[in-house]
């Protein structure tokens, strides 16, 4: 693995954070959110700030920007110095002037980070309008120039576009253009590629590196993705619960982490090496999909828009107790297939045989007896549980609908809580009282309470931290072992797919491009698209869990 290991001893320090303490209002009487952290970034250097959710990474960046939420968080100690400017001593007006001009920031969700009702060109130009006295035509020239620098195609058209008319990657390029148009000394990137597909992520990462090189910008890159860190970092800082755990040059940290927490974090990174193959299944497949098509009509009254062929001739089998991974980027049709299997939508044609019954075109009423055999776990555990219902009520709703007595269902629900590793009294509590990982356990328990044959997990671990991810994957594996459930695992993350799937099906633009045992698809990909997906997976040549390069055993 080739690391960026440049030397910055000669470079001047751009950002110096010393003993920074950020606290909740004194009334809260809790431990500070940032507990005296220190950090240095030099000119041209990329510093990665890593940690799990709640570690204080984003708070650190907002503190530098002077954008901590008013009355909720305040700096109560330490210093932040940008070159020679003491940022904490600046007035609100002076800070406003420094933002974008000397420190700029890009955010995680390029969809929500851009104003949906303003043209993107105007949004970039606004930066110049706020900070310079350039005439309008000069401002426009500068905007077009920076848009070309971030390699946007057809710049004039995109200038006039609204965010929703652009792809995720294009939107993130707009964000980067906006951040760099004034050539700031420091760029803060808060999970800028987390919401993007791997191939887009790869492009955005190299774009940031290219512009950094060109303008000599110092970059503070916040991420939870160790693969990304391995690709781009010069120096890494590890945070945990508001404390700075460890900092080191990238190669030192990955090969020889000093602190337990860093070791734990690295060990949890799922490997791209597929799981050891399990013995071939016996008996007829539980789920049999043949030539499944889903076409979304174009509609339109006067002009007929073209149809969207979201799933084309998709066929596969899954045997009892096995896991099939459906892998692909956004727009590949993987979620469409999942929704068809669950019959949340009706496929245009094709068959879906669930235990011998073809459920592809059954009516709502005819579907009812089959529904309990098919359960789903969604991506976002914060939104998939009714916030006004106790966990117990959510868990027994399904079984009671299918004729179990509430008492019986509650008894079973309590057992399930133990199986998924939560205390029995969780049943009386509400979803907001649990962490993300715990909520996903609840969502799994809810699905399993129906005793399904097939469990569809739609990006079920994508919203979770890696350490929690590993636990939830383990839980799914356990349940499969105990109950013989068949799992259809929808994911964009090849690392996750490698960990849990027996077979993998790769989709691109509605079509299945490759399908086979996980070891073969991931280990020896035949299709160019599969290869490009694997190549785009960041940090793929490093074995994180063993602190060494892959193949260096």
């Amino acid at each position, binding site marked *: 693995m080739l690391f960026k290991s440049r030397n910055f001893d000669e470079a001047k320090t751009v950002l110096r954070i010393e003993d920074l303490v950020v606290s909740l209002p004194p009334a809260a009487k809790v431990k500070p959110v940032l507990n005296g952290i220190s950090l240095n970034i030099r000119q041209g250097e990329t510093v990665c700030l890593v940690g799990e959710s709640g570690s204080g990474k984003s708070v650190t960046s907002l503190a530098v*920007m002077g*954008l901590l939420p008013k009355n909720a968080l305040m700096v109560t100690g330490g210093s932040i110095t940008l070159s020679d400017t003491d940022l904490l001593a600046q007035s609100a007006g002076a800070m*406003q*002037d*420094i*933002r*974008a*001009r000397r420190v*700029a*920031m890009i*955010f995680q*969700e390029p969809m*929500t*980070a*851009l*104003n*949906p*009702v*303003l043209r993107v060109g105007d949004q970039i130009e*606004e*930066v110049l309008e*706020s*900070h310079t006295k350039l005439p309008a035509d000069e401002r426009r020239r500068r905007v077009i120039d920076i848009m070309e620098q971030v390699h946007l195609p057809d710049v004039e058209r995109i200038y006039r576009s*609204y965010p*929703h008319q652009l792809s995720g990657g294009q939107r993130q390029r707009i*964000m980067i253009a*906006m951040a760099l148009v004034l050539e700031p000394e420091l760029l803060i990137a808060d999970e800028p590629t987390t919401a993007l597909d791997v191939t887009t992520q790869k492009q955005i990462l190299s774009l940031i590196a290219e512009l950094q090189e060109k303008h000599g910008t110092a970059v503070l890159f916040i991420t939870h993705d160790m693969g990304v860190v391995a690709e781009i970092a010069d120096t890494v800082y590890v945070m945990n619960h508001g404390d700075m755990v460890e900092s080191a040059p990238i190669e030192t940290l990955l090969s020889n982490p000093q602190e337990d927490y860093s070791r734990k974090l690295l060990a949890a990174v799922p490997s791209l090496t597929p799981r050891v193959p399990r013995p071939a299944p016996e008996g007829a497949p539980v789920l049999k999909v043949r030539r499944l098509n889903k076409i979304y009509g174009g509609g339109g*009254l*006067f002009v007929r828009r073209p149809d969207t062929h979201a799933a084309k001739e998709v066929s596969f089998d899954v045997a009892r107790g096995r896991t099939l991974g459906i892998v692909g980027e956004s727009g590949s049709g993987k979620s469409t297939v999942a929704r068809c299997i669950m019959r949340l939508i009706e496929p245009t044609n094709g068959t879906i045989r669930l235990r011998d019954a073809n459920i592809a075109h059954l009516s709502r009423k005819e579907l009812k007896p089959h529904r309990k055999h098919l359960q789903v776990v969604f991506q976002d555990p914060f939104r998939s549980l009714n916030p006004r219902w106790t966990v117990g009520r959510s868990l027994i709703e399904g079984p009671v609908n299918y004729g179990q007595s509430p008492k019986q269902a509650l008894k079973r629900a309590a057992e399930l809580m133990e199986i998924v590793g939560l205390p029995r009294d969780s049943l009386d509590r509400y979803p907001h009282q649990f962490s993300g990982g715990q909520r996903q356990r609840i969502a799994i328990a809810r699905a399993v309470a129906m005793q399904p044959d097939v469990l569809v997990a739609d990006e079920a671990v994508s919203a979770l931290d890696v350490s929690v991810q590993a636990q939830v994957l383990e839980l799914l594996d356990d349940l499969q072992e105990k109950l013989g459930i068949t799992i259809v695992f929808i994911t964009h993350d090849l690392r996750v797919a490698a960990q849990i799937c027996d077979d993998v099906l790769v989709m691109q633009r509605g079509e299945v491009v490759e399908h086979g045992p996980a070891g073969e698809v991931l280990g020896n990909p035949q299709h160019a698209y599969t290869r490009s997906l694997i190549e785009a997976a960041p940090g793929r040549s490093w074995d994180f869990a063993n602190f060494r390069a892959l193949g260096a055993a």
Partner: protein
Amino acid sequence: MLGYIIRRILAIIPVMLIVAIFVFLLLRLTPGDPAAIIAGDMATPEQLDRIREAMGLNDPLLTQFMTWIGQLLKGDLGVSLISGTEVTEMIGQRIFPTLNMALLTIVIAVLIAVPMGVIAAWRHRSWIDYAVMSFSVLGFSVPVFVIGYLFILVFSITLGWLPVQGYASPSEKGMLAFLDRAILPALTLATIYVALIARMTRASMLEVLGEDYIRTARAKGVRESKVLFRHALRNASVPILTVIGTGFALLISGVVVTESVFNIPGIGRLTVDAILARDYPVIQAMILITSGTYVVVNLLIDISYTIFDPRIRY
């Protein structure tokens, strides 16, 4: 977009037809003989016969309806039973005062309420926010006739700045004369809309201010006023526009009390007078016009969304 507008305009036809049927049946479904209702208690049988003949009540129901619709399409709304004048003429005289008042009111309300709501949301949970919310409750709960007379007492009688009552047409007597007389009733009418629009603006703004692109705007070093009005308000505008539009439609049909207090010859008073006098042709015409206003205003609101939010495309 054009296709959408055409479709929406075509959709007005069935809606108005249903209203027309309802209005037509209004007289026919009232218990008893319409002629007797119209003629009143003291009518002689001969008078009743004449009325029946004049109204075509002896014809089959369908024929009556077709005749009536035919007249409607020609713009003939009938003749007032009381004054004997054409209903279209009566309404024509009265609609402009009402329309002018409604416009002035809604403009005043928007100018006061939107900044109020924006600032309340910006300074969420501060004294300004609480002041705006308290005013909002007050604006809702104090009846129009109390506020109206209070304004007259303060501004007309005590301070002597403005006339007590009356109406001056802006086209005949000039804008100043119109404003001079219209400002008090418009302010009176506006209180409730200020309360409503300020509340809606605040709620909608609070939601938008939590969005990521607001953080982006601040990260760009954009001035706070621009963050609020350029970035946030436009995104918050859809529910606000809805309230403003509905408010305007309500104003045209429901300004009876204010017109009475300030003695404005608008259609609100015309309606009340017609109801008290059982002047059925006028009542029918008013229902038709009111529903027509709602349908058209609704269409305009829907179209205005697309101006403020480019994601909304029909």
